[in-house]
């Protein structure tokens, strides 16, 4: 027996004390309504109504049930409303991830900004490399994430791309004062995030370094800036970082002349996950990136690409 439905019928009859009017209110015919009420009485093993030709009256059991049923129906309605909000992404949990290169300060700002926009959604934010993040989005174990661009999004949806210039981390001892040219680093080693963290970005970065005359003597891999800064501190290697990374004493940040290296990120999400929480995450990420001085760019890749005769298409 669908108890909730039967209770709804009963409440209508008990409130109207008239089968015809109750049936009208329920948009149904009277005979099936009478049958359902009898079914409910059989199910509960009590008589709920006293029926005569002229009128309908509640029995004592009917009066008790009316109060209980009203409460139960109200709770059921609340339950449905809550589940509706979960469905719309206003309640529940959002599983998100960001690359390990995103600094601690940015993670904190992102969590706060999201909570302000969507206080009833628990944001489960974890660290993930871009390829693993894209895989998790594709297989449904993650709802949304921040990815390094360019990246292979496939069928995933992507938010607007933001870029920030990377500068160079140097041992303070002997570091030049002003901006550094990439070519000046030609005798140095490089400490960089591991290629598997963001292969497309890694290749692009090394290709740009090489094009500007910096072919590192060795490339060391480090996920987090503190570790990279440690390697830099030892003296032979340089690293790349955004301007706002906290640094240990003895390591300095310098801008790169001509801003040749950009770090670009965007959000990416499963089209099926789109809803209030995904929109709030996008909005929060946009606000946090803009606050941190990232600028929106038109394309997830470079702004302009000019093929040359010897290196263009089909030569």
């Amino acid at each position: 027996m669908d108890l909730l439905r039967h209770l709804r019928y009963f409440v209508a009859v008990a409130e109207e004390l008239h089968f015809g009017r109750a049936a009208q209110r329920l948009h149904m015919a009277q005979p099936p309504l009478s049958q359902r009420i009898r079914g409910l009485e059989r199910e509960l093993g009590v008589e709920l109504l006293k029926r005569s030709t002229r009128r309908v009256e509640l029995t004592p059991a009917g009066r008790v049930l009316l109060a209980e049923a009203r409460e139960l129906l109200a709770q059921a309605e609340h339950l449905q409303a809550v589940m509706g909000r979960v469905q719309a992404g206003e309640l529940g949990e959002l599983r998100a991830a960001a690359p390990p290169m995103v600094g601690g300060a940015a993670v904190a700002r992102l969590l706060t900004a999201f909570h302000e926009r969507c206080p009833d959604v628990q944001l489960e934010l974890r660290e993930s490399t871009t390829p693993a993040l894209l895989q998790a989005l594709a297989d449904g174990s993650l709802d949304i994430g921040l990815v390094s661009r360019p990246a292979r999004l496939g069928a995933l949806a992507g938010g607007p791309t933001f870029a920030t210039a990377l500068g160079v981390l140097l041992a303070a001892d002997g570091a030049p004062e002003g901006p550094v040219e990439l070519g000046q680093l030609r005798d140095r080693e490089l400490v960089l995030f591991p290629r598997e963290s963001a292969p497309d970005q890694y290749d692009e970065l090394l290709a740009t370094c090489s094009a500007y005359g910096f072919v590192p003597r060795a490339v060391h891999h480090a996920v987090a800036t503190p570790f990279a800064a440690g390697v830099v501190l030892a003296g032979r290697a340089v690293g790349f970082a955004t301007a706002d990374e906290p640094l240990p004493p003895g390591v300095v940040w310098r801008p790169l002349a001509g801003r040749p290296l950009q770090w670009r990120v965007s959000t990416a999400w499963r089209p099926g996950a789109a809803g209030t929480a995904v929109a709030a995450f996008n909005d929060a990420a946009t606000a946090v990136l803009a606050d941190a001085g990232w600028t929106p760019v038109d394309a997830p890749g470079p702004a302009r690409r000019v093929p040359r005769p010897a290196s263009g298409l089909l030569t």
Partner: protein
Amino acid sequence: MSQARIAAAFADAGVEGWLHAVDIDAPGREIGLRADDPVVLSSVFKLPLLVELWRQVDAGLLSATTAVDLPPATRTSGPTGIAAMRDPVRMSVRDLAQLMISVSDNAAADALFDLVGERAINARLDALGLDATRVVGCCRDLFAAMQQDAGTEEPDELALRLADPDVRARLRVLDPARSSRSTPRQMTALLGAVWRDGAASAEACAEMRRALALQVWPHRLASGFPSDDVRVSGKTGTLPGVRNEVGVVERPDGRRFAVAVFTRTDSPAFVLPQADAAIGRAARVAIDALD
């Protein structure tokens, strides 16, 4: 040992590489790295086209001196040669062949492709025993496929979209199963036939060698042999992430080596000097190993 050094030359430049090198006059002396894998030819398809063109001249089907009209409105465009010009051009078959090879002129190549025919080129490859080598369409077909897969015909926009890894992942021109293809070993076999006068008449093979020796690009195969006494002849091929060159290195001691180098990288950059130079470096290591 030498194969490891060839692999290192590719790895140092951040590219994947396929290579075959062989002594033209002692074909038992050879070295390869994934030499029998299928690879996309890109503009290297102009080499089998050149061979069939001269076979048709040998057979009297075409005259090398016949003038061909290339009106600007209908010829294929590109960054070099007639493909980059503005006005009507009338040029002989053999001069078109020379431009097709020396500067990879797409307009010249497609005009000759229309004269020679795709079926005839593939029949010639069969006759030469090069059954893993297939020519599928000409330059305008490659362009059209790329524009379709990238969803734009506008050149600036196309260049930008080709930087998107998702777009590159769906480019048919990068799939050997759906584009002009060969293997490194079959390309050195074809070059060997041209250099041994086996691909056509001796006179026609000399014409082909002349065109290949006139190729202007210094950044790939030739970069591995920076010496006035070495002749480097070749034909390059370029697509997003793809850099190829097949050619012949003739040393002052009289030894001649055919070498075919095919590379790929995930980097979308057009300008990637170290990837170009890796072709010369890997070829140099391979040929030195054949001494």
